[in-house]
């Protein structure tokens, strides 16, 4: 299949519309999970080289907890749910029904709960966009690491390069949680990054093109 690297404005808009569908569903699932109001704070879709991915989330040394999953089915890709460390601790408290701020270090049970949060967000997101596109996408089991941002992501990026993929389509969604009941310092942020390899992005674009009535999505 011919792959095109640069999305047109229409392509970006179509990807963003699709991502909004997924993000809305993911946001609802997340709200139910932590029993807190959850908002989609920002959403962006871009094509960029693999090496530039960490920069869309933060600085290389930022301490984070990252949950990664692979996307399987009709397309190939990866997902990362990145919690800044304070947010990881706060969401662990919410998931375990402890008072926010009572956790200083993630225990094994907290890590399992955070992995599950990744599963739920990714599952809702992928189910919504699968329906929208009529392309089958499911998430793999999750894995988790707490460390410097870039150190938790470079393994996933190396996997793309190994498969011969150097350009990715990145979906970046920022969730804000606990926006009404918690204080400003307790607010929880999570960055959801979905990466598709170029062939998979072309497959998704083909489906979006059909939905939009045949407009060109990439050049």
């Amino acid at each position, binding site marked *: 299949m011919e792959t095109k690297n640069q999305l047109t404005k229409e392509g970006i808009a179509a990807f963003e519309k699709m991502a909004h569908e997924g993000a809305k569903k993911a946001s609802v699932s997340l709200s139910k999970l932590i029993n807190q109001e959850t908002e989609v704070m920002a959403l962006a879709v871009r094509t960029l*080289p693999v*090496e*530039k991915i*960490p920069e869309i989330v933060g*600085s*290389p*040394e930022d*301490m984070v907890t990252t949950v*990664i999953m*692979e996307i399987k089915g009709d397309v190939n890709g990866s997902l990362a749910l990145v919690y800044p460390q304070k947010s990881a601790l706060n969401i662990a408290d919410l998931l375990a029904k402890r008072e926010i701020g009572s956790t200083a270090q993630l225990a094994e049970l907290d890590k399992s709960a955070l992995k599950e949060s990744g599963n739920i967000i990714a599952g809702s997101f992928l189910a919504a966009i699968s329906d929208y596109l009529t392309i089958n996408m499911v998430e793999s*089991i999750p*894995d*988790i*690491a*707490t*460390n*410097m*941002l*870039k*150190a*938790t*992501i*470079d*393994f996933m*990026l*190396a*996997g793309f*390069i*190994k498969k*011969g993929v*150097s350009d990715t389509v990145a979906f970046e969604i920022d969730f804000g949680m606990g926006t009404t009941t918690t204080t400003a310092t307790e607010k929880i942020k999570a960055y959801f990054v979905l990466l598709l390899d170029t062939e998979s992005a072309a497959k998704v674009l083909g489906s979006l093109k059909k939905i939009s009535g045949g407009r060109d999505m990439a050049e």
Partner: protein
Amino acid sequence: MFEPDSKIIEVSMSDMKIATNPHILRSSGIGSCVVITLYDPIGRIGAMAHSMLPAATQKNAEINAEERRRDQRSSALDSANFSASLRYVEDAIDAMIVELAKLGAPKERMEAKLVGGASMFEVFDKNPNSIGTQNVEAAKKKLEEEGIKVVATDTGENCGRSADFDLTTGIVEVKTKI
């Protein structure tokens, strides 16, 4: 700690930089990637490379060639500050040796240090065959083939690292956060 007129030069993923005394070469947030430093203690010149994978496969090599052609047509990737071949340990070491030799630093005077090669994920990137381990082994093998001694390593385990390479002393200072 650093000399007042020293400058910190960032070396990002798939990148390689050369510097001289009194500057500092820095790579931040190294996980499964491996950072290789080469230092000539006489010339006080050195290079730091930050690579993602051991060696290019045939498919990777074809893509690299295509990217190089694209780079020649467009300067868009110049600002991205990386080069496709520097993604690979073997190619990066070749590039370091060639570029340092051009500046009068022969490989016979070089000493190497390695940082990174961690296995950050228990399920997806298990040892003994994690990408990090493969990166470190590839670097050791390539340096041995080139006759360059590895004088220090801080590699493996499951921790992210940052490395500052001081070209005045050749010291590589490694920082972790956990």
